């Protein structure tokens, strides 16, 4: 049964016909001393396919648990198989400012060329303070394409850092593969480090 108001079809065939917003929350994962946070297509209601042309991951107050300072959050993409090892070429640049005002810089940092390893969500180690955390976002474009490389764009704030300051990090690049990307994983640098807390949200951005 269709729902029609003032000659406009509002809903039909079990779905709304009118726009309910173009940004759809797909999945929320709460980290709790987690080795990693992983969004995998087809698992736990996660969709990373051609349903959306753009996917967005929000990272909110991700706290790294570590016995020492200097660790940070990182991420990688899955392009087939079970490993998160898509080959990436990327750029990274960061602005740093310390609480004592001694350091204030802007420069390239952490870029990689044709590497399969995890890429930095920030590029300045975190302190061991209880209130330190990362917040930011990561955009992934057209991951289901089997024709094009897959571009991603990320921005993140981290602090207080191991040098007691803030770092704004901008990290962009592409997975140099024509295989579909169907998974995204976040983890920490340093063996034994865990994502102690944090909220990770995956959104899909509609194209119509």
């Amino acid at each position, binding site marked *: *049964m*269709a*729902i029609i108001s003032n000659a406009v079809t509002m*809903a*039909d*065939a*079990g*779905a*709304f016909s009118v*726009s*309910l*917003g*173009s*940004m*759809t*929350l797909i999945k929320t994962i709460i980290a709790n001393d987690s080795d990693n946070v992983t969004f995998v297509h087809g698992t736990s209601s996660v969709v990373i396919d051609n349903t959306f042309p753009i996917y967005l991951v*929000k990272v*909110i*107050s991700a*706290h790294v648990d570590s016995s020492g300072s200097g660790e940070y959050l990182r991420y990688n993409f899955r392009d087939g198989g079970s490993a998160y090892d898509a080959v990436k070429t990327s750029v990274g640049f960061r*602005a*740093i*400012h*310390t*609480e*004592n*005002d001694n350091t*204030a*810089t*802007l420069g390239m940092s952490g870029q990689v060329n044709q590497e399969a390893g995890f890429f930095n969500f920030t590029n300045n180690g975190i302190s061991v303070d*209880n*209130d*330190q*955390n*990362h*917040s*930011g976002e990561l955009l992934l474009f057209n991951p289901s394409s089997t024709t094009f490389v897959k571009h991603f764009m990320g*921005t993140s*704030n*981290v*602090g*207080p850092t191991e040098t007691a*300051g*803030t*770092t*704004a990090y901008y990290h962009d690049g592409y997975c140099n593969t024509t295989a579909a990307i169907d998974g995204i994983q976040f983890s920490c640098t340093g063996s034994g480090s865990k994502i102690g*807390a944090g*909220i990770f*949200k995956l*959104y899909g951005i509609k194209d119509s």
Partner: protein
Amino acid sequence: MGVISNGTTLLDAGALDSGVATGAMTLIKTLTASSSGTLSFVNGASGVVIDGTYKEYVFKIINIHPSASASFLVGFRDGGSNYDATKTTTYFRAYHQENAGGGVLAYDAGFDLAQSTDFQDLTADSVITDNDSGISGTLQLFFPSSTTFVKHFKANINSIKAGSSPEMKNSFSSGYCNVTAAIDAVQFKMGSGNMDSGTIKLYGIK
């Protein structure tokens, strides 16, 4: 009474069914400047929500036109009535002038903050007051209700600097409120003078 279409419940008990995918970006409040000294979004006032309802808040700044040539500023409230949360921030910008001067990307230590309670400068320098100019951009605030973590924010703002040749400036300012108290209000203002016109919209991200 529920509304069921093709066997799927769309509406029930006065709300959309939980199975219906809705937009994740919710408009909370629009403030329109009219010779305004400040524009303030305060949790609990005039329909504004800045609390644990959302884990991220986004402000869209659209064509704020200043009455005087000045910087555009933001402050955060962490209790009490003052917008004086302690902040450590970075600031860098790209700029290019209409006469082809400039063409620079660089950090500017004149506009960052180190453990300061001052307002953060979002544009740096004085923006032009020509009738057709304005300030536009976005400010994101993460997890303001947390009482465990510092509160990160970041802004990306376009403005036009006053001078012999108007200068397009793209400003990146970000950092954290170095407090574990909740942030419950955000205020925008010019360094001097008023905001003649323009709108600022607050959204919550589900």
